């Protein structure tokens, strides 16, 4: 197996005196979908927010341990550099309401003051929107504001915006929890297609979704990483009793 894109080592996080994550060890493989699954409050969202260092923006939040992207310790880098290398898609679609669809896709370049040629921008916009399976729907309306898009389309726009930066890894924080079933199916299919080119870490509270789209699954419960392995093994022959109970719907 090739070396993982991301390694989480002996990692703990807390809000004030409240531990949220306890001694997590996890690795994310290249061009695979890794799902973080668990009931509400288990720390899965906190974990991915630690990976792009958004966790520390909250007052009183702190961490111990290390997270390596390839071989670089994310906590020894400038958070701005970390976030340029790691893309994120949020629970609720959040395209920038003041920008056109086009400008939303290249927002990462424009907002960071990265100067690129017009043709290069056009190429990035088309490529990213194609990857996010949104190009055909918006190609004639690129310079209009994104507010007329449906929730699912807005979320795909946000995915395109993250992909435009060519991230080493794409974090998705319950990307379908605010969407209807049809849009959810669309995003899930998109995730399956994306993994040929992108490494994805997906947070979900939806067991079936983890089973459908992921290659590896981590089960978190009350801040502990209970079990981590291939999705196939975790869903068929889990090692831990708690995993089995969670999967069979006894709690969560």
């Amino acid at each position: 197996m090739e070396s993982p894109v991301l390694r989480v080592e002996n990692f703990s996080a807390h809000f004030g005196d409240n531990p949220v994550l306890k001694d997590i060890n996890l690795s994310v493989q290249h061009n695979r979908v890794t799902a973080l699954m668990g009931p509400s409050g288990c720390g899965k969202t906190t974990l991915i927010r630690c990976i792009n260092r958004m966790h520390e923006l909250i007052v009183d939040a702190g961490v111990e341990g290390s997270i390596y992207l390839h071989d670089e310790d994310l906590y020894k880098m400038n958070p701005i550099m970390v976030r340029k290398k790691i893309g994120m898609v949020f629970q609720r679609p959040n395209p920038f309401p003041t920008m056109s669809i086009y400008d939303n896709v290249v927002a990462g370049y424009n907002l960071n003051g990265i100067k690129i040629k017009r043709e290069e921008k056009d190429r990035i916009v088309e490529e990213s929107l194609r990857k996010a399976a949104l190009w055909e729907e918006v190609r004639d309306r690129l310079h209009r504001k994104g507010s007329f898009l449906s929730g699912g389309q807005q979320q795909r726009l946000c995915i395109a915006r993250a992909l435009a930066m060519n991230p080493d890894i794409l974090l998705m924080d319950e990307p379908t929890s605010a969407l209807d079933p049809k849009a959810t199916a669309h995003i899930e299919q998109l995730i399956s297609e994306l993994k040929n080119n992108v490494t994805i870490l997906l947070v979900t509270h939806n067991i079936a979704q983890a089973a459908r789209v992921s290659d590896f699954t981590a089960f978190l419960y009350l801040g502990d990483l209970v079990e981590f392995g291939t999705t196939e093994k975790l869903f068929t022959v889990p090692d831990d009793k708690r995993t089995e109970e969670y999967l069979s719907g006894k709690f969560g």
Partner: protein
Amino acid sequence: MHTSHSNIRLRIIKDRLFLALVVLLSFAMIVPLLLIIFHIVKNGIGVINWEFLTALPRPMGETGGGIANALAGTMMLIVLASLIAIPLGVLAGIYLAEQKTGRIASGVRLCMEVLQGIPSIVIGIVAYAWVVISMGTFSALSGSVALAIMMLPVIVRSTEETLRLVPDILREASLALGVSYARTVLKIIVPSGLTGILTGILLAIARITGETAPLLFTAFGNPYMSLNVLKPVDSLPLMIFNYATSPYPEWHAKAWGAALVLVVFVMGMNFTAKVIAKRWKVQF
């Protein structure tokens, strides 16, 4: 059976009466405004013509003449006051919106509330003490300082309130793209709340345009055209005050005319603010 029927009738009648009362009182509310406008238009429209707007005042006894000096002075005061108050007010508003808690933020917030309540004449005296005395002359600048102090609380508050409404998920979207905090505030949060900030600025301008008291001993008034910020200037409210308190009927008529111009300007500002708030509203 019969009684319950008439009972319902009675209730319907009561209901109608209540509705009529509410509608009637709502209309009663706009009566004072309509009366003011009617009165000003009736007395002021007669003197309004091109000369009135573009000519300087003539000495008592001559006919004709206008309010050009006061119009220019008012514009100059507004522009100068805005140049002082807008940067300070918007920046303070951004700070307060970003810093929800903390001693400095609540201190600033309290100060703005107190400042809002200080009578304008007192602000005028302070501007007199600071600027007029230290520079040795009445001036447009001193008047603008007084007006800027009056604009500040309005701008600070409207900026803070609008920016608070910008959803946190937009801030997170920007930060997650590796955008620095400063750029996130300036390029995402402020543009998302820009209409509210603009509206606040226009309302602040509308508020100070009619101020007379703080100008009495700062801008002072000037019957000649002056575009020098270090010299006294006239302004519409000052001119109205001086003309209306004079003993000459011709000047009274001019005061009405100037009042009409002033009211039209202020209403225009309010109307523009409404249109901007509606037209350019950002949908989150």
